[in-house]
């Protein structure tokens, strides 16, 4: 995958996660229905669980946007989305699984040239030279 493709993939996936995360933060009651039944036995209110999930996704999306630790962040978001796809199943599950595999594609490639990871690597190489 070339540099431009990775940039497009990273920005679009970060935007997608950010949008869904903010929807969860602003209207948690609309997302409660997507929580798996076992979460009902956690000592945490349903709306709080949705907001915590939304906040985690927001921060990870920001990290992806800034290009900070892109590979581990992509892996976490990808596995998170695989778990959601598995839980939701059906047509939405298939779509989520495809999105999860797209973000895992970022996790298995090197960071593109517009990331802080790349700039950090460049500066380390200059120092070692």
């Amino acid at each position, binding site marked *: 995958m070339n540099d431009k493709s990775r940039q497009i993939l990273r920005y679009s996936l970060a935007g997608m996660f950010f949008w869904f995360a903010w929807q969860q933060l602003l209207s948690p*009651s609309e997302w*409660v*229905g997507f*929580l*798996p*039944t*076992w*979460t*009902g*036995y956690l*000592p*945490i*209110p*349903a*709306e*709080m669980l949705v*907001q*915590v999930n939304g*906040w*985690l996704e*927001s*921060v990870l999306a*920001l*990290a992806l946007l*800034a290009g*900070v*630790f892109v590979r581990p962040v992509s892996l976490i978001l990808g596995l998170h989305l695989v778990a959601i796809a598995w839980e939701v199943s059906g047509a939405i599950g298939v779509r989520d699984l495809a999105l999860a595999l797209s973000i895992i594609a970022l996790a298995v490639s090197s960071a593109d040239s517009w990331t*802080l*990871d790349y*700039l*950090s690597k460049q*500066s380390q190489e200059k120092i070692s030279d």
Partner: protein
Amino acid sequence: MYRNKVAIGLAVIFILGLAYIVYAGRPVNNVKLANQSANNQASSTELVNQGSVNYFSLTEVAGHSSSSDCWSVVGGSVYDLSSWVSRHPGGAKAIISMCGRDSSDSFNNQHGSSKKAKAALILLKIGELK
């Protein structure tokens, strides 16, 4: 490294946000919010608010009888089951049938000795029956 500073900044933002979400969403706030909502309708309902405990009449509870706005009475306490409808392991129908009424018998027949069910229910408490 600039990258590490940004990562640490994001971690701090995450922890602060998490703390705020946990603080603002703690169960005691369910009671406060229900109290505010009920006070807005106080002139048209039979609500009695005594101190920090909300008291609701059965008429008030009966006004919340849909799957999206579901209040129920179990053992003399009033619970907002709206967020539980879609998550009930035994299906939504069982919860919807409890909305807007005293469903102590239904709950006790099904979950009388279940600590898990009682622990899940206590999170949804918004007051006591008047």
